[in-house]
């Protein structure tokens, strides 16, 4: 399951949905808005999402992770809209029988999401015009 959200991510609710009595491991990743980037003081972030394609691509990534790693269930949410420092921008949760595959699948999910989903980020600064930023490993270029 993967969703795009206009509102704050409820991590407690998401965690409660990842229940399976065979699971011995739960691993999650929270991406938070930090107050600096590339030497600049960041005040907030705007996320813009091409939602239809982002959801399709995210579901492909979920299926890939299920094929590559021995996991029981995966879930993820990415925010869109204007976020402030400390807000959760992205959340990934994985349950598996053992911790190794849960860590590996979680890492795979967040890495692929960052590089493949049509999501854009505009940084706002204290004394500078806002700027669209890009993932440094975008498109393998």
């Amino acid at each position, binding site marked *: 399951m993967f969703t795009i959200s206009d509102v704050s991510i409820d991590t407690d609710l998401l965690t409660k949905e990842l229940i399976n009595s065979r699971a011995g491991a739960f691993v999650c990743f929270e991406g938070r808005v930090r107050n600096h980037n590339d030497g600049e003081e960041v005040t907030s972030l705007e996320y813009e999402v*091409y939602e239809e394609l982002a959801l399709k691509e995210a579901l492909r990534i979920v299926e890939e992770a299920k094929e590559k790693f021995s996991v029981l269930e995966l879930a993820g949410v990415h925010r869109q809209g204007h976020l402030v420092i400390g807000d959760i921008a992205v959340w990934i949760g994985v349950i598996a029988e053992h911790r190794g595959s849960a860590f590996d699948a979680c890492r795979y999910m967040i890495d692929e999401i960052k590089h493949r989903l049509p999501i854009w980020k505009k940084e706002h600064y204290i004394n500078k015009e806002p700027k669209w930023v890009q993932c440094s490993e975008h498109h393998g270029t």
Partner: protein
Amino acid sequence: MEKPKVLNIHYYAMLREKAGKREEDIESFAATPLELYKDLAGEYGFPSDSRSIRVSINEEFQSMDTALCSGDCVIFIPPVAGG
């Protein structure tokens, strides 16, 4: 005589800001997304280097050399930055 294709174009992020609009229907003789991008880059001042631009046609990633058809919904995808 060749007729122009009617294409529905959506813009996101920096391309939306440069175009000054979210969406438009255009008539174009462009055969591929690459040709279409070059036309739009000239009109709206998009980045001239198209190597980091990808394209979605009808909600699926496609090559910039794919043949365009009348009625296609085309969305150019500038460098992404999720997470």
